[in-house]
């Protein structure tokens, strides 16, 4: 069965420091991979996605992620964190559903990012 692991529940970084959030997945084929950000009480905002092709994916807000098949990982990175990046970050793997055309996302448990001024 598909699964997503985000090993870090909380991460604290100083503003201006680099950031890497880890995500490991379990899936038999090449998955669709996503990173979402969620501010408290808010909805899910898509940061970036990987379907195929270049394994380094650029997203919004200066984020990027790299798909590494050999490590079953899709880690999110940002070279310089801003205070406004403080939020919860969810990695998700998308896999075809039972019915052709449908997809099911499996989300990780999330990583809460705190940014120190």
């Amino acid at each position, binding site marked *: 069965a598909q699964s997503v692991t985000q090993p870090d529940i909380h991460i604290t970084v100083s503003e201006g420091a680099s950031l890497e959030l880890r995500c490991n997945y379990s899936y038999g084929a090449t998955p*669709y991979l996503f990173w979402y950000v969620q501010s408290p*009480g*808010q*909805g*899910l905002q*898509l940061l970036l*996605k990987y*379907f*195929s092709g270049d394994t380094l994916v650029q997203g919004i807000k200066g984020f990027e992620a790299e798909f590494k098949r050999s490590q079953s990982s899709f880690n999110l990175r940002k070279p310089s964190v801003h205070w406004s990046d403080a939020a919860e970050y*969810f990695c*998700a793997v*998308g896999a*075809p*559903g*039972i*019915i*052709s*055309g*449908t*997809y*099911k*996302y*499996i*989300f*990780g*448990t*999330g990583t809460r990012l705190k940014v120190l001024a």
Partner: protein
Amino acid sequence: EPEVTQTPSHQVTQMGQEVILRCVPISNHLYFYWYRQILGQKVEFLVSFYNNEISEKSEIFDDQFSVERPDGSNFTLKIRSTKLEDSAMYFCASSEAGGGGNTGELFFGEGSRLTVL
């Protein structure tokens, strides 16, 4: 840019009451989904819907839940008799028809927060 819209944004109800959460998917999308996020936890798949019937559901989606597409634009989630543990953020999502490189992408609404007292 087309988006998935959900109403209400927040609903408070008494235990045992019926609740209907409404969603307007993106107009040319054919696949519809509901996900749930209990406060502080990960986002979980509830149900997918295609061609006017449920295509897949999770173990969470028990007999208290039902989904319907009553007309050409709305997609609803009904909870027949709410329980305290139904308190959560409910996300609607939709995806486009098959074909093309991005058919694995779900577009999420902003969510409807349900509070059961």
